[in-house]
């Protein structure tokens, strides 16, 4: 373990969080006009923040709020105290700008050192960082943390796959940091070049910065012969290092001494029951230059309440399973298409192809899941085939919380969609 905080008792952690939260809220009320005005509008008295639960009286911060305060409006320190500036890409609108003080960089490096340690990396490792170096937080974030840890860092940045592989061979890289899809690309190119990954020194892969699946993890682990762990972060909150998996690969430990997490129903903004899927909302507890209060990540996950065998007490979240933008409300229940996808994946053992059709009949929502039949769910016996359909129906109903109709269709008969909101055909006229 990198530091002792990772094994904090729940009481001690709660005390530390409250202490840090009070300080942080006091600071933003003084130094960030956006929060000062919000608190005033909401008649929120900073001095009344007496328990962690009081966080629910604080306002939310959205991506749009950050955009509206472009570039430096959300900074809580003068620029002379800022030693680093990063920016998130503006693919869906205006970019957002985030800053770090020297203390922030030190904290960030420590948190990265934590997740690297948790994933198995040590001072003996040669770590190849194939995240982009630049305004994106991935490259520099991992870089400083890996140096802090004392690993030997190869700051190769992203791209040029053949060169990545060459360096991996020559420099005897033992740990690879990149996006999961890039890891598969590397595996593909190795195969094209006739390079056997078992002949390399690679042992660990730390993947993040994009959504991936358990199936991808299996594929990466098998093809590259490494232990593949997931890590999570977003530039608005810090960058990578918010949460990361240990070697048990069973979900991501959240660095709760620096980030307060809530998992909320995106529609009502009330907490979901423990273990239910909801939107991850993060409050930074120690950030100096760019603190955020209840930042709505739009990322969906759920709490994994069981203790982890590794001994870390920080609670775990499941890998990000989707975005709130994809959420559907059916019969008043929040349904996420990615839940359906993972249930079907579980049953079929392969990437499912399905459509979700929502209709309104007699003022009631009717949900039909059309599933392309594959060999693993197809039987020559009618009895077994019907049992399989019932089994799928029951699992979907119990895990989604709404009854569904299931209809099997022939392979390749459903339209292939790409991108968001895919596979959902909402015929309701409201």
């Amino acid at each position, binding site marked *: 373990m990198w530091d002792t905080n990772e094994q904090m008792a729940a009481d001690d952690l709660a005390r530390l969080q409250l202490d840090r939260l009070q300080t942080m809220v006091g600071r933003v009320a003084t130094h960030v006009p956006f929060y000062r005005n919000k608190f005033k509008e909401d008649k929120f008295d900073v001095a009344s923040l007496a328990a962690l639960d009081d966080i629910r009286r604080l306002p939310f911060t959205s991506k749009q709020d950050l955009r509206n305060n472009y570039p430096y409006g959300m900074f809580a320190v003068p620029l002379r105290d800022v030693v680093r500036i990063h920016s998130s890409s503006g693919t869906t609108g205006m970019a957002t700008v985030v800053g770090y003080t020297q203390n922030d960089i030190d904290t960030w490096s420590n948190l990265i050192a934590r997740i690297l340690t948790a994933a198995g990396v040590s001072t003996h490792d040669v770590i190849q960082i194939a995240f982009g170096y630049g305004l994106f937080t991935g490259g520099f974030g991992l870089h400083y943390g890996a140096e802090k840890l004392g690993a030997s860092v190869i700051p190769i940045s992203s791209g040029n796959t053949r060169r990545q592989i060459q360096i991996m061979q020559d420099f005897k890289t033992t740990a690879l940091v990149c996006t999961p899809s890039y890891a598969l690309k590397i595996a593909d190119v190795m195969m094209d070049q006739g390079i056997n990954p078992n002949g390399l020194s690679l042992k660990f892969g730390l993947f993040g910065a994009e959504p991936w699946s358990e199936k991808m993890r299996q594929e990466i682990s098998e093809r590259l012969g490494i232990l593949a762990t997931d890590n999570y972060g977003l530039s608005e909150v810090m960058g990578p290092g918010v949460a990361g998996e240990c070697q048990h690969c069973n979900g991501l430990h959240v660095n709760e001494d620096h980030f307060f997490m809530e998992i909320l129903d995106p529609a009502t903004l009330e907490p979901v029951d423990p273990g239910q899927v909801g939107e991850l909302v993060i409050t930074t507890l120690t950030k100096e230059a760019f603190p955020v209060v209840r930042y709505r990540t739009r990322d969906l996950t759920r709490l994994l309440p069981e203790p982890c065998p590794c001994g870390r007490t920080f609670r775990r979240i499941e890998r990000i399973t989707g975005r709130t933008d994809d959420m559907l409300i059916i019969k008043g229940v929040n349904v996420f298409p990615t839940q359906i996808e993972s249930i079907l994946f579980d049953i079929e053992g392969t990437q499912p192809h399905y459509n979700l059709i929502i209709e309104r009949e007699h003022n009631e929502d009717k949900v039909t899941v059309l599933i392309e039949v594959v060999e693993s769910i197809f039987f*020559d016996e009618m009895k077994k085939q019907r049992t399989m359909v019932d089994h799928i129906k029951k699992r979907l109903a119990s895990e989604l919380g709404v009854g569904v109709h299931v209809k099997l269709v022939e392979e390749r008969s459903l339209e292939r969609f790409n991108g968001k909101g895919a596979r959902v055909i909402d015929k309701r006229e409201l």
Partner: protein
Amino acid sequence: MRVEQIAVFLENKSGRLAEITSILAENNINIRALSVADTADFGILRLIVDKVDEAEKALKGKGFTVGKTTVIAVEVPDRTGGLAAVLDCIQKIGLNVEYMYAFVNKTGENAVLIFRFDDMTRAIDSLQEHGFTILESSQVYNL
């Protein structure tokens, strides 16, 4: 003793069965026996053909979901009581029939009954013990 059968998933859309038979014909595959089990939503087509692997490959190549299972073929004289004798015996032994279908061979002398049992080994043994003729797979493919 065991005969390979292929099963194909069918949505109840018109023309699909014809499509399958023409794919098989194009690949010079002959259908020996065929049965369809269906519900309101979907159907399961079961086929016995002379070239099992080729048929499986051709149909999968055209996007059909294909499964392979083994069944047994029992030959009985095509006269009154032929079928009844087999069914009677099966019931007495207490074998569980998952499904069955029948066809008459080219000469028209004998009927062939295709069975899928939950316990295939026991079914073969006991039917033979009771004197029924179970066809070899090569006999069935070349009927």
